[in-house]
């Protein structure tokens, strides 16, 4: 597993064609120098660090359902976010107090063309606003600091990192809207085969994002990426009112590399058939027992219950659960499992990985970070906000435009040294069912993630929403699809329960939402056999399917 990973295409290979600094970067640099010089001389308190980040986003979204285009949107925006740090790296305006996440940036739409006058004017006014927000908070928290007991974590507020200079020309986005409209009409017409699908759609997203970052430390970065995806969703209502949905998706960079129609059609049929089967499946019963999580389901499981808990800033925040804060060097997973975050990998087994990038949103170079080796916790995901024992970033400071950076996940790899074939894994499940004296085990084929509560006050439960789950009987009966499965349990308990993994990894590409907004991520994992998982029946809606039948086919 590890070896195959290393032979994959690296970002760095693509990025060899470095170009010269763009006009936008030059305008931003000169305005940064001008504002920083004056604020440093006259500001009370004075800034010690400033950064301008511009996200240039071009996006096309097409949505079709039942053979017709439902919506079509095109947008292009350049959004400026400003970082101003006042005080010193030891204590600055970004210090988190009582779990409060300060936000200073005022997202500003910049001119779409490199018009110096228009851009300078916007940047100047926004800088003033952000500087005011920053200085006001520093003065306030410094005063409050005197009234409070010292925090357990006495680390600095901002780490020192090597400035980076790298210019990559913007990638070209080729998107033929008319052609895709015709394809999506044809593909979405397939939903007509599934009368139980009340609401079905195929959404196509094709985006180009270009990031420009200039900082007073000398970082000058320009790098971009394409992102394309097809999301197929279909939803319906069982006769007892339970809402059900299924989904399929494809992700790649260039929209031209998305699958051909037959492959998309197969996914539409799969989503439709899964829904149709679910609508007629028996509802799940409360159950505790062994289960297999498919590779994709396991990826989501790891992302939610593990990944979020090793994000560095949570270890510093007194309001957080801090599940692993004191666990570095300790066994937290079975010894045959390792977990690596690697944003430098663009692809895995020919599929684009959504959590890839060259530099994070603080301009720190992306790198491979093994967080768990042979079950032992080694480190956390770090932004430039240090924590005790981890004074530096490891390139995981991320955000959506408009939000402030915190440490976030990238591409999560679950690696295993206790691998068996899928067939053997299933056999192990059946043995475990028999051993525990259970009537059946479970197979989680498809899940989507909900949210993770990591705050100390909340229940420490992960939320993964299972879509397609089967009962696996020990007596050779065929697997039985069940609907309305909802997982309960605590994350710590779930980790100790992993018995073995399959020898094939699957990819879940997704968008992760947290404090710093939505960021693209991926989770790659083999299927997992767990000795115990607890499920309950999800709350169902009381209302009935539509009163009138679907309108007839009319001329």
């Amino acid at each position, binding site marked *: 597993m590890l070896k195959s990973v290393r032979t994959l295409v690296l970002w760095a290979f693509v990025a060899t064609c470095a170009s010269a600094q763009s006009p936008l970067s030059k305008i931003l640099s000169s305005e940064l120098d001008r504002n920083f010089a004056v604020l440093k001389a006259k500001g009370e308190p004075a800034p010690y660090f400033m950064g301008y980040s511009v996200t240039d986003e071009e996006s096309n979204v097409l949505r079709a359902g*039942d053979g*017709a285009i439902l919506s079509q949107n095109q947008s292009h925006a350049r959004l400026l976010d400003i970082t101003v740090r006042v005080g010193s790296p030891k204590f600055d305006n970004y210090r988190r107090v009582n779990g409060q996440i300060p936000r200073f940036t005022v997202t500003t739409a910049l001119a779409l063309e490199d018009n110096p006058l228009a851009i300078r004017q916007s940047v100047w006014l926004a800088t003033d606003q952000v500087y005011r927000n920053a200085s006001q908070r520093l003065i306030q928290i410094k005063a409050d600091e005197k009234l409070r007991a010292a925090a357990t974590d006495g680390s600095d507020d901002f780490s020192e990192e090597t400035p980076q200079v790298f210019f990559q020309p913007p990638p070209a986005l080729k998107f033929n809207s008319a052609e895709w409209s015709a394809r999506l009409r044809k593909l979405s017409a397939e939903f007509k085969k599934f009368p139980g699908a009340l609401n079905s759609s195929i959404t196509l997203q094709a985006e180009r994002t270009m990031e420009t970052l200039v900082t007073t430390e000398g970082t000058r970065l320009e790098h971009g990426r394409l992102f394309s995806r097809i999301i197929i969703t279909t939803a319906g209502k069982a006769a007892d009112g339970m809402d059900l949905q299924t989904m399929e998706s494809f992700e790649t960079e260039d929209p031209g590399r998305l699958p051909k129609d037959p492959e998309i059609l197969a996914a539409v049929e799969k989503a439709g058939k899964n829904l149709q089967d679910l609508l007629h499946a028996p509802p799940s019963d409360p159950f505790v027992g062994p289960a297999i999580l498919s590779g994709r389901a396991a990826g989501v499981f790891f992302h939610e219950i593990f990944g979020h808990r090793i994000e560095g800033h949570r270890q510093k925040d007194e309001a957080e659960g801090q599940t692993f804060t004191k666990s570095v060097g300790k066994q937290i997973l079975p010894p045959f499992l390792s977990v690596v975050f690697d944003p430098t990998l663009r692809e895995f087994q020919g599929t684009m990985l959504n959590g890839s990038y060259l530099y994070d949103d603080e301009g720190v170079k992306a790198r491979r970070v093994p967080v768990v080796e042979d079950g032992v916790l080694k480190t956390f995901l770090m932004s430039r906000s240090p924590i005790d024992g981890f004074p530096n970033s490891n390139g995981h400071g991320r955000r959506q435009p408009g939000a402030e950076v915190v440490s976030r996940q990238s591409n999560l790899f679950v690696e295993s040294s206790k691998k068996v074939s899928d067939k053997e894994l299933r056999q192990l499940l059946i043995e475990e069912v028999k051993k525990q004296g259970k009537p059946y085990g479970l197979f989680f084929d498809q899940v989507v993630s909900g949210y993770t509560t990591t705050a100390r006050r909340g229940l420490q439960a992960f939320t993964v929403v299972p879509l397609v789950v089967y009962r696996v009987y020990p007596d050779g009966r065929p697997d039985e699809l069940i609907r309305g499965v909802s997982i309960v349990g605590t994350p710590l308990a779930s980790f100790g329960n992993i018995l073995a993994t399959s020898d094939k990894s699957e990819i879940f590409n997704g968008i992760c939402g947290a404090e710093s907004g939505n960021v693209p991520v991926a989770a790659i994992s083999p299927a997992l056999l767990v000795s115990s998982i607890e499920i309950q029946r999800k709350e169902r809606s009381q209302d009935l399917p539509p009163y009138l039948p679907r309108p007839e086919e009319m001329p």
Partner: protein
Amino acid sequence: MASFSRRYFLIATGLSLPAARLLAQDPYAQDVILRAMRDELARSRQLRIVGGSSDDTPYFISYTLDDNDAFEVDASFGAVTSVSRNRFRLPNIEVRVGSYDFDNTGHIFSGLYSGSRYDTEPLAIDDDYRALREGLWLGTDHAYKAAVESIARKRAALTNAAAPTDKLPDYTRADKVESLAKVTRAKFDEAAWSARIAKHSATFSAFPEVLASAVELHFNQDTTYYLDTEGTALRYPDDAAWISARAEGQSPDGMVIRDTLATTAFTLAKLPSDDQTQESLTALARNIKALVQAPEGEAFVGPVLFEPQAAAQLLAQLLGDNLHITRKPVSDPSRPVNLIGSEFEGRTGSRVLPEWIDVVDDPTQTAFEGKALAGYYPFDFEGVKAKAVSLIEKGVLKTFLTTRQPSKNLLASNGHARFPAGFGTRAAAIGNLFVRAAQSTPLADLKTRLIQMCKDRDKPYGLLIRKLDFPFSGGNAEIQTLRSGSANSGGSARPVSPPILMYRVYPDGREELIRGMRFSGLSTRSLRDILAASAETTVFDYINNGAPLAHSGVGGYIALTSVISPGLLFDELEVAQFQNQLQKPPLVPPPDRTANR
């Protein structure tokens, strides 16, 4: 073949349509949206709950659909910051269960549905009959379920509440109208318009006092469809184009200065010429420049002269917001409903203006003295033909603008439902509001009279107002300040926009611009203190969105509106300092606007 199966379908669902529709020139045959709406509307009459009571069957269903193609360009200091073009078809499906006398609307939770919904708004943008019907089917199902839930809640609430004093029906019948206008869409050059707007936005680059600014062009090509189970069937264009601009500066003491403008038309071609736009933008920039240097005003009580535009902006609020009645919804006894009612409620037959002023709202007029009127519309939001309404005659309030929701003594609609409103109802609003003075004097004479009044009363100066900040361009926090300022000073619960261009007029006739003022204690009662009107009148067009102060930036439905008014001289009004939170000017000097051009 096609017509056979359509007939078959119609017979099968028990709906008889006028024979004219089945002729060869059938607009339904040519318009798939119309056909899908008609067919699904007809089928939806069958909706009922198995085992439910007859009270739970729909007695009225209406489908409204806006087929919209919206283009927008935003630019600042010579460069485009955003361009978008969106096509969408937005349905508004109304299902009423019960009867005209008692239905699901008018309860505090009317329209809310506790179940899951499967209808996707907006509808398909392809002319695909099946997809459109699917959308309407699911939308109707959702609206029906919400209606059944609402009427049950309403009945439950009324079992515990004392019976309402006046038993009003919940809905009235309206005359059946059929009007299916042919609608054409204009082709226009997006790139050329983007370049024009970018160029206009560069006007402000020459004014260092303008710190932030934006110019926007909007062009909505909208076709409105309306069909209901009473047989009304409408299709008409509802296009709107507007250029709006906003400029901000900061006075030396830190006060943020703002001014805005908007010019509206029904088509791009009817927007002002480039030269005219340039001229009004330059005037806007000059206003900022002048306001930045102007002194802050002081509290004042005395005579105030509103020039025609400011008078129209004032009356758009004081009359516009009070010439319709909002019926209080049924609620639980423990849950009070806070609604700001009309200040004119219960004052029909009383004098609300000087006896030489008449007020008529006439949305059927397309022009006034050669100038197009923005407030023209053929049909309202409930499919009722727009009608002229004489609201105030010789200063006496005669009636109100109405929708199909009856209120006391106002049982029929006069075609003024212009917005979807809360509790399953629609809100009435003005279209073209004509304020006519039977006696008038030239504006110049009114200024002389203002000066004379100040002399007679030993006032150092009187006030002249040329422009209000209406539609209001400030933030929500400022609206709160205005609201509490108005309520605490005995004024209207709905605050009135503050002045932007306000001048002290000294005895020698000199005018001095002042800034930072708002009205105090102003309400409809103040209108009785109008002394005189000017011979000059103006047409003030604006984009109403139903929000307080028509606050710009609030999304949703819009209604173009015109107020035609003379200038007005008030015997006595009160103004106070706005008391903005002041902010220090930026530490860093502005970037050099001449470099790198």
